């Protein structure tokens, strides 16, 4: 088990709903190996986004553990989660990934610099590969949706995270652009050797990943 990149055990999460507590996650366990890509699918409300947020240190779990390279992100405090977000994990969201007040170049290098391992050569390579070289001085609001998601992917990989989390990264794009962005993301993730956990409800996307995990009513189906 220790050789796995990510080990999730018995994660539970309950939210306060309008009509009493609602259990979203009910003892979810799974693991992900180094360099492995996993599609997390399930119906709306199955808890897949919440699970991703917990693993990404963006949300806390009520019980269970999620070890990333040995560190349990569930049991550390706010500052600890922030440190893991900076150095180990990186998230690509469906939209609004970018910092509006920084230009493309600064957005790409932002997380890497926060983690203290920015590599200008690698940044340039990424920009080149993502087709962003001509847009480095632009601001996010000046880019199309597809371009914005490329920047988000560039930023994620520039930090060389061990684990990339993606939450419907192509959900807001038309199918053609979505395929293009997904292809780029998979290529680059594979090249860096990171693991990928991608929440999606798109069959097209799920089919292109190594493995698939389906959630239903807060449990692995």
């Amino acid at each position, binding site marked *: 088990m220790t050789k796995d990149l990510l080990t999730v055990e018995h994660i539970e999460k309950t939210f306060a709903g309008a009509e009493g507590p609602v259990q979203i996650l009910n003892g979810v366990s799974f693991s992900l190996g180094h360099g492995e890509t996993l599609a997390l699918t399930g119906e709306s409300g199955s808890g897949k986004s919440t699970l991703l*947020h917990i693993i990404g240190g963006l*949300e806390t779990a009520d019980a269970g553990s999620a070890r990333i390279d040995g560190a349990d992100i569930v049991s550390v405090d706010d500052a600890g989660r*922030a440190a893991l977000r900076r150095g180990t994990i990186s998230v690509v*969201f469906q939209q609004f990934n970018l910092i509006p007040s920084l230009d493309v170049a600064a957005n790409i290098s932002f997380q890497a610099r926060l983690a203290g391992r920015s590599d200008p050569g690698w940044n340039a390579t990424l920009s080149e590969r993502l087709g962003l070289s001509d847009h480095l001085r632009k601001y996010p609001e000046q880019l199309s949706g597809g371009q914005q998601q490329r920047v988000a992917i560039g930023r994620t990989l520039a930090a060389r995270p061990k684990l990339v989390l993606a939450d419907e990264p192509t959900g807001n794009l038309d199918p053609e652009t979505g395929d293009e962005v997904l292809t780029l993301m998979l290529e680059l993730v594979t090249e860096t050797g990171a693991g990928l956990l991608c929440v999606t409800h798109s069959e097209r996307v799920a089919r292109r990943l190594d493995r698939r995990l389906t959630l239903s009513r807060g449990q692995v189906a």
Partner: protein
Amino acid sequence: MIRAGLSALLSHWRRHPIQLLTLIIGLATATALWSGVQAINAEARASYAAASATLGDNARPYLTSGGPIPHATYIALRRAGHQVTPLTEGTLDTEAGPLRILGLDPFTQAPGETFLDGLEPGDTSFLAPPGQLLVAPQTVRALEGSALPPRMAVEGVAPDQAVADIAIAQGLLNRPGEIDRLIITGPASLTAPPISDIAPGLRLTDPSDEVDTARLTDSFHLNLTAFGLLSFAVGLFIVRGAIGLAFEQRRPVFRTLRALGLSRSVLIGLLSVELLILALLAGAIGVALGWLIAALLLPDVAATLRGLYGAEVGGSLTLKPVWWVSGLGIAVLGTGIAALASLWQTARMPLLAPARPRAWALASERAMLGQALAALACGAVALVAWALGGSLLAGFVMLGGMLLGAALALPLILHRVLGLLSHTSRGPRSEWFWGDARQQLPGLTLALMALLLALSANIGVGTMVSSFRLTFIGWLDQRLAAELYIRAETDTQAREIEAMISDRVDAILPIRSAPTTLGGQPGEVYGVADHATYRDHWPLIARSPGVWDTVAAGAAVLINEQLARRADLWPGDQVKIGDWDAPIGGVYSDYGNPQPQAMIGLNRFAQMFPEAPDLRFGVRMPPEGIAALRREILDRFVLPADQISDQRAIKDLSLGIFERTFTVTAALNVLTLGVAGLAILTSLLTISTMRQPQIAPVWALGMTRRQLAALDLARAALLALLTFGLALPVGLALSWVLLAVINVEAFGWRLPLHLFPRDWLALGALAVVAALIAALLPALRLSRIPPSELLKVFANER
């Protein structure tokens, strides 16, 4: 339809209570400061008008004879048709120290001014022996158990004075039938012969001809009014922000309503009605708050004016209907001004424009450039007003142009400064910090403009008042170099006093004056002795070599600053005094006197004005003996106490006035700054919800909410500091305009500008603290925001 439309519009406020609160608070505080200051002004003016008319009848002309005026003379004047009322005064030694008794005749005091109007109907205890003494409440306590007639506490009597019926007073002072002054209360009958035919020995004095310290109160009121106006402007920035946001957010609602068939004019009408309701509501709150402010500050203002007039005035406030109306009026007017642009935009809004919500806060750099151009235009207007100059109005236009220009230029300047500072950033955090500060700027613009105005006003008015105080005190020290100043009633009395004191004092310096024309204007010329007192102390602001010798020899004159500035006459020029083309030897500062004035050597004066009375003189003497000598003179001669004045008492009085002025100015400073702080708070609260797209990615990438909150606090402090940096030169320019332009136009004298860096440090710190306090609540909210709120940014749920 109209009702449905109105309820659709008003529902916005239910969903955005903070915006509503912002609007109401902004308008209410603006109205409060404005109407509070107006109330203080009005109340103060009314108070000293009443005080000067009633108590000593200071402002009325009066007759004196140099000794007691016989009762028969008084009756003869009344029976000839002259409206005169008698006054007998004197000092009694009491357990509580010397008590000045003022004996007045309530029957002949001017109608509506006699203090008996305030007594109970049918109560004759004031007139019937043993009579009654009207004294200040503290004097009642001090005199407890005294054998004097019964005391009655009356607000408005000076602490060491007692007012009594004249017959009672004459009995107490053992001066039956003797009258010191006859005060003229009104016009004489058509058939009345001249006073000189009936009582040839009486001399008429008209206090309104004398040096008029009331000019200083005008200056005081001008400050207060300017402050009130600035405070109101500061408040309007808040209102403008809230209204602008409310209109922007409701654009879709407007479109829907229009699409449903509501006409443009009905929509604008509904919006106007809505604003009117809000303005009246906030205005009412504001007037009430203003009343509170005025009630709290009035005791200090009353004390200030008491200092100026030497008489207590009412320290409480009457709430007048006109006050409510004007307060509500200014609130409606202010709302109208603040809403004009928004209403205009709404009226011109096309029905089917793309419903792309362009966030109002994200004004582009182009908008900033537009504002900067407007700022340049304002600056140009200010410069033109300065160049044309020559009037009070030009001074105020200059002031307004300067302040508005500075406020409009603020966003671009801050944007550029933040851009420059961002180059210093090393890590990604500081890079984001600077970038985000620039991003946030448009949303904070109005609040920062308000802060700029508040700080500039603080620096400007504070510098002016402090400079004025420093100059005025220095001038008093120079001008009042003699220890004692005496004005006798007659020449004979003057000679007798001189004879009595001549071997007990160091020097007697005659002060003679005569009205004449100075360079074609009516003015006063003074004859002064050649004495070291003048050579060493007289406050000359321009002089020619050997000036005192030539003046003493009668070969040159000194003129006051008012005359010099008005007629542009300086040493080397000549001024016509009567028939004499007098060379000007020097110019002296002369605060508190609106008239042209000149000084010439005593011998020359005696030649030119042999008829001029020789009644006044200054006395140089060791300070220990002053009190005893003053008392002795008052005991031996019939002389109203205010005609023999102790230099130190005058100085203490003046100093007291300025301390009080400071109290009021300081209180208004804090209030104005408070309003600006409120503007920052409400702006930050407003933009905090719109800022989540900025915050969420940074948080997701590995910064804690606590770190982000700390950065927000730092940004607020930084913006306040930068604004203060700009406010400093603006405030100094403001004080320069007040001292060197407005004062010259309004009062005829120019005051040197003194700098008070320590005050600036304190103010800068205060500005940062205010901004931190304002930012604290939004920062706390940020540090505790649930992650799910931030995560919504990335999801479709938004």
